[in-house]
């Protein structure tokens, strides 16, 4: 069939560029590798030239891929599946960028683009390191290009192309029977961008995070270059500024994700120990540990083995994180992983290649390298062809159980291969790099820096062990579910790490390399220590930090951690004068540590003093009589429209709403009045309602920021429109004594129903009854507004006769229809009003700004340190 109206050319060019990028980066890898291995200078130079040209071709291709995808989305070319899935006509132009990297395929493009940029910088600055470093970087580009190929190779799909045509991906869709489908009215809009991603943070968080991810490869490349050229210590100097840059960008990227979660998603916080969050935190931790051991090496010649290991591990963990978040393996445990594209094997291979690369390079002769390669490849192939199961079949064992075990053993091969690679790397590094025999002094800076790095590494190992549960489930066929209390399961261990790191952050710089005199140390740290003790005392005494949900033991550790972080803040600030005498060029470490300690304090205080403002015992606050409710109290609060409600410290009114002109997004206006200060402000949380066929509600919070706390509100439920009463006729409600009903500006509570005895038999018959109900009616935001209404129900001679009651101003009519001694059916008529309501949660986060400010200061510290390390490397 010939299709009409499709824009095929951009996709064909895009697809060609993907293949060009793939081929060019293969050539770059090979040429740079040969160049790095060739002793003859002229020959090495000519290979390097080929490497460069190929890499530049790759750079142009990746840039082209990005631009084409952007313009396809901007032009709404829905014949491309990626464009259809991830964008729509209603997108503002800034969100077109978000749409480019909103799904897995696009985010690989972003990653490759950053690699390309970093590669160009390295080509111009790395000098003698160019060939070995670019070999590794080009290899990574090969792997990334395969992720975008979208071709079939012996029946296996390799990669997912962002330029795949919708009709080719889903030919069974009836619309594609029509050759002119592109112009059909059904085809004029896309699926729309995921509602959660339509937020300004999603425009900047992914590029920064991916630059953080991408940049971890540079120190890795230098370390691999060190192995490749057998110059084991020389790579440290040029790698250090890159490691600092990477740590800076990755930290900012991660915290932007936190800010996104905090400000735009309804997770109720900036960090939830979600596997996707953990997966990006862990490489940052190992990178920080690695930076410290690199510094130890620079100053004392120790810890080179550990540095190699940590820098290699960092990039490997980035790939592990990529595997976890994109393979769909996290399944039930994460709220925000990518859609599974069926590329698990390929993603694993990407990880596996770079897991073995350091190990293979750490063998010194070609024969061992080949053996290593054979083992690595063998394990994966044997697992793929399910060797243990094949053996079982050959042996002719038919029983179920041995077969199951064989399956499990087969699945463990890649795991064994991965662990084996890490152990072999450690063994080889130990052989390659001579360690200094003499022990470092316990009073030396390097000793405690090493301990600190080890503690950070342990923190990373523990988080990884906990996050990897879905992987264990997959391999061993288990059904372990996440913890009963996920956040606490992490916090109760990480609090100890925080305490140790807090103390080391405070004191580390007051120690000298090689050896520190006791008197020197005491003299320098004395004042900072005393001031911190007083400051911490004040904060703990007046701060009212009494988060006793997990008992006094845990609370006391929070106190200790707060004291330690205060100590770290003050000691690092003081060090600017005491230690480096105000020389700002040297201030990087102090500034970074100061910022880090501030983050720590912000995290501890904001999470232990988080308050739920909307915590309530009743649906609607009812001041009179005890309202009988079903179930427990909770964090949600219902606001009827237009009624001033009492919410703890605030008077709150749901005063109105407005709709987005283009999208099905609604803004709610909630007015707050502080009861004490009388200060008033308005929050406008919004929600997407049934956006593009995604049934239901997706809420975006709004926050009021103060210097020391934030008030933060988001919608949790809206009134079901089908249940909103028609106000011109009687609406019936079934109520028990104590139940309440709200109407516009009014609350109605059924107080009592009394039955009258001794009724005149001539009127009521034998079993006659007369019920008299009493309702309290009031406006909770207005004093002295209480009114009563007393409708009656008579049962006379087998007939029910209701006697309605109308309020004196005629605004409300109540009628008692039925009463069975337990439940009453009540009719409500409100001649001229419409009712609406919403349910929301309101939180107060204190001192959250310490976390954001701390992040920025830490980033600044990294930059200062990086500038200094670049200068040192030049001289």
């Amino acid at each position: 069939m010939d299709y009409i109206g499709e824009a095929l050319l951009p996709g064909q060019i895009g697809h060609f560029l993907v293949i060009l990028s793939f081929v060019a980066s293969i050539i770059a890898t090979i040429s740079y590798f040969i160049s790095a291995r060739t002793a003859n200078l002229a020959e090495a130079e000519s290979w390097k030239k080929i490497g460069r040209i190929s890499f530049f071709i790759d750079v142009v291709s990746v840039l082209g891929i990005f631009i084409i995808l952007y313009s396809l989305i901007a032009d709404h070319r829905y014949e491309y599946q990626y464009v259809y899935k991830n964008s729509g006509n209603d997108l503002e132009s800034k969100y077109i960028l978000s749409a480019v990297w909103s799904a897995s395929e696009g985010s690989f493009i972003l990653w490759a683009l950053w690699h390309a940029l970093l590669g160009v910088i390295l080509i111009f600055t790395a000098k003698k390191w160019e060939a070995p470093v670019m070999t590794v970087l080009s290899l990574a580009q090969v792997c990334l290009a395969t992720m975008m190929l979208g071709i079939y190779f012996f029946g296996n799909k390799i990669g997912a192309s962002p330029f795949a045509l919708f009709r080719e991906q889903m030919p069974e869709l009836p619309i594609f029977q029509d050759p002119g489908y592109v112009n059909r009215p059904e085809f004029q809009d896309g699926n729309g961008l995921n509602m959660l991603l339509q937020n300004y943070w999603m425009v900047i968080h992914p590029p920064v995070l991916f630059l953080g991810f991408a940049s971890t490869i540079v120190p890795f490349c230098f370390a691999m270059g060190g192995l490749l050229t057998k110059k084991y210590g020389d790579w440290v100097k040029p790698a250090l500024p890159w490691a600092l840059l990477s740590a800076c960008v990755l930290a900012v990227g991660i915290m932007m994700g936190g800010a996104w979660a905090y400000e735009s998603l309804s997770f109720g916080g900036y960090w939830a120990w979600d596997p996707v969050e953990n997966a990006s935190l862990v490489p940052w931790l190992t990178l920080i540990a690695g930076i410290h051991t690199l510094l130890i090496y620079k100053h004392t010649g120790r810890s080179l083995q550990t540095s190699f290991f940590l820098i290699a591990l960092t990039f490997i963990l980035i790939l592990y994180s990529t595997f976890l978040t994109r393979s769909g393996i996290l399944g039930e445990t994460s709220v925000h992983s990518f859609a599974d594209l069926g590329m698990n094997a390929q993603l694993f291979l990407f990880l596996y290649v770079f897991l073995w690369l350091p190990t293979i390079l750490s063998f010194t002769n070609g024969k061992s390298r080949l053996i290593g390669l054979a083992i690595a490849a063998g394990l994966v192939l044997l697992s793929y062809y399910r060797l243990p199961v094949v053996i079982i079949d050959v042996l002719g064992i038919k029983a179920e159980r041995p077969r199951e075990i064989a399956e499990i053993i087969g699945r463990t091969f890649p795991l064994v291969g991965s662990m084996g690679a890490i152990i072999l790397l450690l063994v080889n590094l130990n052989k390659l790099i001579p360690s200094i025999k003499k022990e470092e002094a316990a009073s030396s800076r390097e000793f405690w820096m090493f301990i600190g790095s080890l503690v950070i590494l342990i923190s990373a190992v523990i988080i990884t062990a906990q996050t990897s549960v879905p992987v264990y489930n997959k391999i061993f066929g288990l059904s372990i579910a996440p913890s009963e209390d996920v956040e606490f399961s992490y916090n109760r261990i990480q609090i100890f790490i925080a305490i140790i790191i807090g103390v080391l952050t405070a004191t580390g710089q007051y120690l000298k390399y090689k050896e520190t005199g006791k008197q020197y140390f005491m003299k320098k740290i004395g004042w900072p220590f005393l001031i911190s003790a007083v400051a911490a005392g004040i904060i703990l005494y007046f701060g009212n930090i009494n988060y006793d949900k997990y008992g006094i033991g845990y609370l006391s550790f929070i106190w200790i951690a707060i004291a330690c972080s205060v100590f770290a803040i003050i000691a690092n600030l003081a060090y600017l004068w005491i230690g480096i005498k105000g020389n700002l060029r040297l201030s990087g470490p102090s500034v970074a540590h100061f910022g880090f300690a501030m983050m720590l304090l912000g995290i501890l205080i904001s999470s232990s003093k988080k308050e739920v403002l909307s915590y309530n015992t009743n649906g609607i606050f009812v001041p009179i009589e005890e309202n009988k409710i079903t179930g427990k109290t909770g964090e949600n609060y219902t606001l009827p429209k237009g009624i001033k409600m009492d919410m703890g410290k605030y008077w709150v009114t749901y005063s109105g709403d407005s709709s987005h002109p283009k999208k099905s997004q609604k803004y709610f206006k909630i007015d707050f009045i502080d009861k004490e200060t009388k200060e008033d402000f308005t929050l406008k949380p919004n929600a997407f309602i049934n956006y593009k066929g995604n049934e239901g509600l997706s809420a975006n919070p709004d926050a009021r920021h103060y210097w020391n706390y934030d008030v933060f509100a988001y919608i949790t439920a809206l009134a079901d429109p089908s249940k909103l009463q028609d106000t011109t006729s009687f609406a019936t409600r079934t109520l028990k004594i104590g139940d309440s009903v709200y109407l516009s500006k009014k609350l109605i509570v059924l107080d009592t129903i009394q039955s009258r005895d001794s009724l005149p038999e001539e009127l009521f018959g034998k079993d006659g009854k007369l019920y008299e109900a009493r309702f309290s009616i009031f406006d909770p935001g207005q004093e002295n507004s209480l009114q009563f209404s007393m409708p009656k129900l008579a049962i006379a001679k087998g007939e029910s006769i209701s006697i309605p009651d109308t309020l004196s101003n005629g605004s409300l009519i109540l009628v008692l229809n039925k009463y069975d001694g337990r439940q009453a059916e009540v009719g409500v008529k409100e001649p001229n009003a419409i009712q609406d309501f919403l349910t929301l949660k309101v939180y107060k986060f204190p001192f959250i700004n310490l976390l954001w400010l701390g992040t920025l200061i830490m980033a600044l510290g990294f930059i200062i340190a990086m500038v200094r390390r670049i200068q040192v490397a030049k001289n």
Partner: protein
Amino acid sequence: MKKIHIVLLVLIVAAIAILISFMPSGGGLTTYESIADAKSKQGKVVHIVAKLDKSKPVEYDQVNNPNYLSFTAVDSLGGTVKVVYNNAKPDNLEHSDRLVMKGKMVGDQFECNNIMMKCPSKYSDDPNRIQESMNKTAK
């Protein structure tokens, strides 16, 4: 003290910490259970993967208590249980295909403290669903 000793010591501490983190008390790990198995484990926190039973009523009245939701869940083995969730009703409850619920059995009801909704994402590879949403676009 030799460095290797410290390394060993720290490794031991780490091993203990990992073991603690996996222990079932407090913040420890739980398991995925069928409804029938969960019922036999009264009071123990478990995860249940089930569906909303649409033939039974969903009880949620924001006005009287926005923190009380109750509905009936049914799992793939046919077990059913009444679920009580002390929180706001997730708006897409009725449209979810699967519910991953964390909680414990108390008497004959499942007291749930966390529900994760697995919704059929619109670009799930179901052509009918895509066609349906395209038809909506045309209107």
